[in-house]
């Protein structure tokens, strides 16, 4: 007889609900902390949440009224499970790394990604690509604010900057010569895109020229040293942000493009990017999206390892950094209400020139800019206590991690996920989804007094936790289903899910944020083999 599970003493104490293992318990606690989340939603119901003080009063008022309507007369209309699924699956994408004869095998098996909009249009972006001239795969999530222009631009451009930063000198030369002589270029990236992930055609020439300038400089700077991934990531982030800023200052004769580059620069975006090459995993993060590693412990259970630090007011080091960069006189006004200058939630971001340029530069650009820009209250507004810009940087923090066989997957997600789910739950839900195994203690009666009815109740509950797994073919979709539909028992509640998804556009943002998720699955065999080689 195996060691009896320690379940039934609990049943005797009539606490069946607690039997669902400690994980379940944890989750409830987590939800409790967040139960106030919805109330907060009203308080910061600005259309662009990250600028709490900047909301347009009229609209805000209307929304508030709507919200009250909603609260007093809940909608009777529910979505059917297929309708729910079609909403959840609209943006899902999966990529499996092809294997050829076991040669050149990748430590990445593939990835699942998905996003669920709350803003209309969605302000999150995602990117995934394989580097063709170097080894490795790039994956990133980008959370835009004050519009989606900056997130869109970063999602299109950042990986090129990274790839170029990683290229050896000879390859850069070869590419430059090809451009010079009008020959076909070496491809740098193989994109893995969902049909909804668009690239802007209009700006592509402008973007190319900026990128070319970058590699020309790299060629001139040729240090002869091999490229360090960490350095390359930092350089690429900074360079792209710099280019965004410059393009806005210079402007473009084409009025459409001119307006575009200004929108990109005046909006903002966080970025969380992973570069995987063999056992080397680098995560470069700017802002409050997050990367998390799913680790399977020896007993089969799942745990989470953070691979990024949030750049926001909750991060003491980050607050410290900001304070160090500015005179002591500004100490009090730098961080107010957990926001940078009382306005911005992430402490690092692309774009957002309002927090980077001097007041003079801002005024000059806005005045010489197109009328649309001039009419916009937001762009004309100068943050209070704005004395020693820049207050904001796009420089990422890079964490390097050597993959181990027990590292099964990586989750990159925007804060829309992390504010509804604890990372430990994310690790468990994805882990159980990917392995198809639900780590539940087996039940044994082992001499305790249990009735058929009690056992039935217990089993039904355990089953409910498992059944939601089989609806999804995509780990990211599965995670979103849980993020939006989880009840206090950590199981998906269809009614709740249906309510959350049927919120009208203008209300959705109050109850949830845009969610974007990429789940990268690692090939433990390859990782193990690489590890041995290195030893």
């Amino acid at each position, binding site marked *: *007889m*195996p060691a009896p599970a320690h379940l039934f003493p609990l049943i005797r104490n009539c606490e069946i609900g607690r039997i669902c293992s400690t994980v379940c318990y944890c989750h409830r606690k987590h939800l409790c902390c967040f139960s106030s989340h919805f109330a907060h939603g009203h308080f910061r119901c600005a259309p662009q949440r990250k600028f709490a003080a900047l909301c347009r009063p009229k609209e805000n008022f209307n929304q508030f009224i709507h919200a009250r309507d909603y609260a007093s007369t809940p909608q009777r209309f529910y979505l059917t499970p297929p309708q729910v699924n079609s909403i959840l699956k609209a943006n899902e994408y999966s990529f499996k790394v092809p294997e050829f004869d076991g040669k050149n095998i990748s430590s990445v098996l593939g990835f699942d990604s998905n996003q669920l909009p709350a803003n209309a249009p969605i302000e999150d972006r995602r990117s995934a690509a394989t580097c063709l001239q170097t080894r490795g795969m790039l994956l990133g999530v980008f959370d835009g604010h004050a519009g989606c222009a900056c997130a869109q631009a970063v999602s299109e451009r950042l990986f090129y900057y990274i790839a170029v930063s990683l290229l050896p000198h000879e390859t850069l030369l070869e590419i430059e010569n090809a451009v010079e002589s009008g020959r076909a270029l070496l491809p740098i990236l193989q994109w893995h895109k969902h049909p909804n992930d668009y690239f802007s055609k209009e700006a592509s020439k402008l973007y190319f020229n900026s990128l070319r300038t970058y590699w020309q400089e790299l060629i001139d700077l040729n240090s002869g040293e091999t490229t360090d991934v960490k350095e390359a990531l930092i350089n690429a982030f900074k360079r792209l942000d710099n280019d965004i800023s410059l393009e806005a200052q210079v402007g473009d004769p084409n009025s459409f493009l001119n307006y575009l580059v200004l929108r990109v620069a005046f909006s903002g975006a966080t970025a969380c990017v992973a570069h995987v090459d063999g056992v080397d995993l680098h995560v470069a993060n700017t802002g409050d999206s997050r990367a998390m590693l799913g680790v399977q412990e020896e007993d089969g259970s799942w745990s989470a390892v953070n691979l990024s630090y949030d750049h926001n007011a909750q991060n003491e080091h980050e607050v410290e950094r900001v304070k160090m960069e500015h005179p002591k006189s500004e100490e009090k006004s730098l961080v107010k209400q957990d926001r940078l200058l009382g306005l911005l939630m992430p402490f690092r971001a692309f774009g957002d020139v309002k927090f980077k340029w001097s007041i003079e530069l801002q005024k000059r650009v806005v005045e010489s800019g197109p009328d649309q820009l001039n009419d916009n209250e937001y762009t004309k507004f100068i943050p209070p206590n704005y004395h020693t810009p820049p207050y904001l940087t796009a420089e990422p923090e890079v964490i390097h991690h050597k993959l181990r066989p027990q590292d099964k997957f990586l989750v990159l997600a925007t804060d829309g996920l992390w504010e509804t789910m604890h990372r430990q739950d994310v690790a468990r839900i994805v882990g159980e989804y990917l392995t198809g195994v639900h780590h*539940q203690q*087996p*039940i*044994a*009666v082992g001499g305790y*007094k*249990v*009735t*058929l*009815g009690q*056992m*039935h109740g217990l*089993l*039904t509950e*355990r*089953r409910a936790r498992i059944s939601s797994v089989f609806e999804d073919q995509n780990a990211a979709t599965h995670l979103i289903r849980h993020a939006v539909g989880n009840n206090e028992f950590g199981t998906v509640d269809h009614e709740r899910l249906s309510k959350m998804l049927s919120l009208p556009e203008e209300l959705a943002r109050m109850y949830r944020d845009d969610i974007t998720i990429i789940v990268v699955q690692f090939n433990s065999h390859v990782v193990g083999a690489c590890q041995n080689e290195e030893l």
Partner: protein
Amino acid sequence: MMFLRLLSDVRWRAANPRWRRMTCSRRSTSSTAEPHPISLPAQAQVVICGGGIVGTSVAYHLSKLGWKDIVLLEQGRLAAGTTRFCAGIVSTARPVSIELKMADYSNKLYQQLEQETGIKTGTRSTGSISLAQTQDRLISLKRIASSLNVMGIPCEIITPKQVAQLHPLINIHDLVGAMYVPGDALVSSADVSLALATAASRNGVQIHERTSVSHVLVQKGRVTGVETDRGQISCQYFVNCAGQWAYELGLSGEEQVSIPVHACEHFYLLTYPLKEPLASSIPTIVDPDGRIYIRSWQGGILSGGFEKNPKPLFTEGRNQLEIQNLQEDWDHFEPLLSALLRRMPGLEALQIMQLVNCPETFTPDMRCIMGESPTVQGYFVLAGMNSAGISYGGGAGKYLAEWMVNGYPSENVWPLDLKRFGTLQSSRTFLRHRVMEVMPLICDLKVPRWDFQTGRQLRTSPLYDRLDAQGARWMEKHGFERVKYFVPPGKDLLDLDQSKTFYKPDWFDIVGSEVKCCKEAVCVIDMSSFTKFEISSTGDQALESLQYLFSNDLDVPVGHVVHTGMLNEKGGYENDCSIARLNKRSFFMISPTDQQVHCWAWLKNRLPSNSSLTMEDVTWKYTALNLIGPRAVDVLSELSYAPITPEHFPSLFCKEMSVGYANGIRVMSITHTGEPGFMLYIPIEYALHVYNEVMNMGQKYGIRNAGYYALRSLRIEKFFAFWGQDLDAFTTPMECGREFQVKLEKGMEFIGQEALLEQKQNGVYKRFTMFILEDHDTDMDLWPWWGEPIFRNGRYVGKTTSSAYSYTVERHVCLGFVQHFDEKTGEELVVTTDFINQGEYEIDIAGQRFQAKAKLYPFSSLFTHRRRKDEMELSDLTGKR
């Protein structure tokens, strides 16, 4: 001495209440230290391996039949393994007739065993109630009830209200009806097994526990002994009753015997007694729609079931000791527990005692495995009880004992014969996948024409892909894929699950148009699965041997084809085949697909073993295409540039000729349907070429593909009997109107001749008859299948063996055997032509009787009406695809 020890052992067990409670702890620790008191004998006539219900039953019946020199070896203790853990339900409600007979016999045997041996077997007739939650389920119960009733087993279809009266705990709100079998019983399975062992040992059978057989010794294809961990025993017969270890034991010897069984975990629940303990006489409940059974057990209940997602185990083969340590899996049991509480909501407060995990052994087709190995003489098998070991154990043991003692059992056991499987159907992967389908099938609705979905595409014709691309739907026989029918492009059939019906199936019109094309133009059916042997010799040995083995005269001119039976001593059909004389000294023999193993073994054991005679299995060498229809002759003559008119190529002829570019195609003027046409036996490398040529050339004659359903409709309306369906080892040519295929005066003795001569003089006791259903509405009424009782003037006279809708007479046609029972004594009387012709007949389909017209000869002409010129229309000018 042996006997005494055993008896004391039995007494100890009966007196020990702990043991009777089936607790999970390793049992009988108190007696484990016992040394082996008796050494093994050096030799015996029979060695039986396995001391479960099956092994003890075989020993019991062998000793009853007078064989005394028998040793039974058990690796652990008697009645261990599955027997000890099983639920002990004897249920006679079985859809297959032979299984029904076995269960009925077992039930009667167990009832009197206590009296015979003095050992308490815990047998009590509680009766059983099978519940129906759907109308379809009720139909299937009614079908079983019909066959139980004609067997004389009391049984009735009852209403939900009556169910509630019989069993107070049952929730009846979702029931549409039920079947009540009052004679079904509960037994203590281990005690039954011990009682059988005791009776056997009184008859002289030696029983040795804790003795495991390592392998069986074989010389020249015969069993000579067994090697055990306690020494060797030489013997003439070995019986493998090793249950879930039968497979491994079969492979352990040098000469391997493949026994396709695989174990699955099986769970049932034991509870403490109810507040008001459940009466021990309360009927057993079977709720197939809920996939569960519920019986009373010591005032509480015992309830288990057959889940949709079984857990196969021991795929890699394991040590048997692990069976004790299998774990309970409550999450796996959850659906069955839900079904239990739905059926008996009052049990919510009942306290659980234990969830028992008791592995059961399953076979690839849900029927047990019985009989002699085709490769090793004297090696018998009885295993794979599909969790009905108690129900079948008694009867199966009896049939196997008869088989060993008399050479053949007293009933047709072909459906259970080991030889229905080839070695190719016993790969471990195949078995693992198949048993996962078989175990749920125990509770699934069994509808006509069901095909297994797992373990498919094992053997295929070279044309498989071509046919599949043209809409072929497949069934499987002996591992070979065969086309059922072709779904025309743009037409969709129902999903697999929805297509289950007892009524008119969705392919009705599709097959109808295939049949029409066979009648009016020409169709191609790929019949490559047929078993094909070549037998040749240097001299006349081949002819001489075959003349002895077959009832028809094979001394025909070269190029003739002969339909003949391969009969046993009683004149019954062991095989029904077509034999072509290729030249003076070699013959080409075509048999049904599932004859591959059986026929080979039969011939091997009877043909002289000298080197001048060779037999080769050429099944895999030829692709067979059947060209059926009046236009077949046109297609073939255009492709071969040879005259194929009836003058040049009469019926029942065989010629090698060229078709298209390909040479050496064996063309025979037979179609197995009674329609005009040809069988083409094509060396496989030409198969695709010949098929393409035929289809291209046939276009202008309206050629199309057809499948076996069309073939079946054609052959049944022509009153053609098929072996394995209509014909079996208990049917003689005299009984099915085939005297013309028997040449009693061919000047040579042949097997079965005496029996046939006797029959010719005395008359037959059953007669193959064709029935045309008169008042049957094809669209609205239940369809006949096979196994329906036949009534003559209101009295039961036999059962149908096959049926099909005849698109030509637009009626259902059933084939079956009519017997004549004396009205008073029930004695079987001779069946005369007058007896057949002078009766009013009815066929019972699930309790509903339909009038039927009996015929002893096929319709003289089944020509479709010739269309008049003015009835022609444009659509007649278009291809029939």
